[in-house]
Every structure is written in C-alpha cells, then in structure tokens.
C-alpha cells in the first residue's frame, strides 16, 4: 500500500510541477542566470590573479548552486500542502507519512535531475572545462546525488514549518555554512579542529571531495565509493527523519 500511495503522490507532484509553468521556468532559468554571473565573477578574478586555477572552484561551486536551489525549491513543498489543507486530507485517506515524503521526493527528483543537467552543461561549456566522458558521468552522478540529498533536506525542513516564513531561518543555518566549511573555498584540513567536525556533517563536503579528486586527476575508487555511500546514507537518513517528524495529528 505504501509503495502504491508513494507512486500516486509522486505522479501527482510531477504533474503539478509540469502544469506550474512559472515555477518550472524560474527553476530552470535561476541556475542558468546564477552560473552566468559566476562566470563573469570568475573571469574578473582570473584576469586579476595570476596562477588562479578556476577549475578548482567551477564545478564545486556549481554543485553548491544545485544544493542551494534544490533545497529552497523543496523546503516550501509540504508547507503549501499543509496550508491548503490537502496534507490533512491525505492522512484522512489513509496515506502513510513515508509515502508522502517518498512521493514528494520522487516527484522532485525530476526537478533535481533537470537542474543538475542544466548546471553541469552550462558550467562545462562556459568555463571550457576539459573532462573525459567517464569523468563527466561521475560528476553528474555526484551533483545529482547532492541534489537528491538537498531535496530531502528541504522536505525534512518543511515538515517543521507551518508557513513559508518558518523555512527562511533554516537557509542560513543549514546551507550557507557549506560555502565556508565544506572545502569549497579552502581545504577542510586547514580549518580549526572543532570546525572540521562540523564540516564533516555537511553533505556538500563529501560531494566536494569527489569533485576535487576529479579536477586534480586524483581519483581513488575506494574513497569515491565511500563518499558516494555517505551521500546515499544522508538521503536515506533524511527520508527516515522527515517521515518521523511529519506530524499526522495535532
């Protein structure tokens, strides 16, 4: 029953996303524009800082953009459902919390995939990056996995929120530290020890580990699989957590 409800809900979410043209257009255009601005910024730094290796930052920062956007777009998903009264209606129709979280996650995975493809394609093209097809596939898998984690993180946060306003405080709390602490700008090992513990809690840290190894041609199969495993673990844990924090009764 859980899987049947999950499929029914995910089909409905996908249909809603497709029908909401404005939301879909903004979700597609936003990453395109942000990557465009990022390229202008990177060009300015490259021309003024001799020896600056843009490849070290281009892909990881693109991954962060996907992480940020997927989180934001999903964080209000259940808020809307709760406000409109349809969440209560789902419960009355006997839908289990796991099916609701899973249905939403599956529905938004499509959007996450679309954003990952857009961001990766534009970054490689604009920054004129040179990767083998195998590396591109691995980069896509990592960014896509990070997007999935972001979707589930957004859904997890939205289980607490009663209005869109409740979601906003989570953005600086959960997403912005990733810029400084997940190895995006400087290596995590250069950070003070207590901060490193926090860095290891951030999913972007594990995605960044693999992306840096690809950029510097230093891939280690064991480490890569370990980092991918951790990202998958994040996704599963967030699904379970979101399923337990979604309240069925008041």
């Amino acid at each position, binding site marked *: 029953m859980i899987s049947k*409800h999950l499929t029914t809900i995910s089909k409905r979410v996908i249909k809603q996303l497709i029908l*909401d043209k404005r939301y879909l257009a903004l979700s597609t255009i936003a990453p395109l524009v942000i990557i465009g601005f990022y390229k202008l910024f990177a060009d300015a730094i490259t021309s003024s800082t001799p020896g600056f290796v843009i490849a070290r930052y281009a892909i990881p920062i693109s991954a962060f953009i996907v992480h940020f956007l997927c989180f934001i777009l999903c964080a209000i998903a259940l808020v809307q459902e709760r406000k409109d009264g349809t969440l209560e*209606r789902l419960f*009355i129709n*006997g*839908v289990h919390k796991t099916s609701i979280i899973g249905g939403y996650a599956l529905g938004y995975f499509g959007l996450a995939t679309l954003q990952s493809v857009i961001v990766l394609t534009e970054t490689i093209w604009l920054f004129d990056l040179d990767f083998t097809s195998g590396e591109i596939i691995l980069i896509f898998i990592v960014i896509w996995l990070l997007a999935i984690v972001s979707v589930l993180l957004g859904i997890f946060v939205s289980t607490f929120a009663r209005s869109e306003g409740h979601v906003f405080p989570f953005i600086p709390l959960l997403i912005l530290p990733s810029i400084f602490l997940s190895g995006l700008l400087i290596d995590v090992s250069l950070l003070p020890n207590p901060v490193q513990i926090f860095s290891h809690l951030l999913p972007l840290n594990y995605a960044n580990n693999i992306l840096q190894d690809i950029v510097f041609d230093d891939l280690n199969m064991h480490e890569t699989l370990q980092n991918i495993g951790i990202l998958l673990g994040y996704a599963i844990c967030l699904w379970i957590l979101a399923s337990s924090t979604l309240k069925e*009764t008041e």
Partner: protein
Amino acid sequence: MSSPFAIVVKEISRSYGEIKALNKISLDIPEGKIFGLLGPNGSGKTTLIRSLIGSLEPDSGLLTVLGKNPIKDRFELRKHIGYMPQLSAVYEELSARDNIRFFGELQEVEDLENKVQSILEFTELTHRAEDPVRTYSGGMKKRVSLACAMIHEPKLLFLDEPTAAVDPHLKIQSWELFRKLAENGTTIVVSTHLMDEAFRCDQLCILNRGELIAMDTPKGILEKGRTTLSFKRNGKEEQQEISSEPTALAQTLKSFGLEADIHSIELYPDTIEDIVLRMVDKNTIPE
C-alpha cells in the same frame, strides 16, 4: 455486539492553550442519519469534526467511530470515511478531474474513470472538468472538494460547512444528495452556522464556546421556542405569545372559531431562498 451508533463520544475535551475548544462533550450519532453541528464561529464544530476524523487528539475522553479509535485505527477506517474540510483543500494547479481521480486512486476505487465522470456530472463540473481548479469560483472549488470526499462512497461522511459559498441551486441539490445518501445508509455529520441548513438535518447538536448546549431533532428544538401571534381587529392590533408547539397554535385559534377536531397546525412558509430560486427557475425555462 455491534452498536446502533456510528459515532460514540464520551466526555471529550480539547484545549488550545487557555482556550477550551471542547469541554466534556458527549453525544451518540446514529447510523444512516444526517447529524448537524450547529453553532457560531469558534463554537468547537471544526475541532469536534477533526477529532472524529483522527486529525486532532482530544486531551481527555473517549470516542469511537464505526466502533474504532479514529487515531489508532486510522488505516482501517480510511475506506469508510469521507471528509470535506472548510477550506477547499484541493490541488489548484490540477483540474477537477485530476483531483477527483487522485483521491480515487488513493482509495483504490474500482471502475474509477466512470465514477469520476458520474461525480463530475452530479456536481455540474463536466464543462470545466479539464480546467485548472485555480480558475474556478469559490463555489466550484467546494464542489470539487465534495466530489473528492465522496469518490470512494464512504459509510461516514464529515462535511465541514459544505455549502458555504455555494449557490442556492447547488445547495438544494447537495442537500438532496445528502438525504439520498443517508437513506442508503450513509451517516453524515455536517457542521453549519446556517439555520435553514441545520433544519434539514435529522438531529441537531448546538455548540457554543466548546459546550454542548442542546441536542434534539430540529422539530424538537423549534418547539422549545415561542411564537408571537399578531391580530388586527377593528383597526386595533393585539399580540399574543404562545408556545411553538403545533398544538398550541390550534388551541389558540379555537377561540377564533377553528374547528374543534383540529388539534395541530404547522406552517411551512417559503424561505427567501425558495422564493428566489423559483423565480430563477421560471426565468431560465427555455421558451
């Protein structure tokens, strides 16, 4: 032993902070009847309905719905309960057909497409069935919501102010349907603050500030009232206040020459809604 009551409520209370939304409410709702919850806004009608459907947990007291606990046995009850909330609670981007189909799929309704079509016809939504619900009027959204609550033909239907913002024509049609459903064994619990609607119920419970202040048939409640008779005789007006019981009017009119064997008189004047509807119907009959 099975209970003749679809719902049994014993001394349930529920507070929101300092506010007592329900205070030791007890009532039994018989099967196959239309049971009305009447009261002003904030009287506890919605809190009571939400407790009965398992959305709210009472602070104290016991309640059973179709012999089950609405929270613990939620998954067993789901096929037998339909709920139409006060908000439309439908997906605005989807069409009416998609919304009804979605809830039908969740309830695993057999022969779903035909049932969706017939419920669209009943709610007079066929001409807009494929349009997004966000383009509908408030009344049309209510109709979609009602259709979503009924698609699985539940034994017990909870309707929270179902006809608010619905035009009089559909309101009457809806009540005809509720009556038909009740005659076929469906128990209907309906909340309203509209008196004319309340008097279409088989039994009424009046709530105020979380307290149950009366429970009776609509006729029984009417009889608790007073009726003022106004007479004009030789240009002079006299008034007399009598009990609203039908026998009291007959008794009073005997002194005006009413035949002795008439024991009871009841008046059923048209409501303003009946009068307007008749005018509208007359006006829309094709030449």
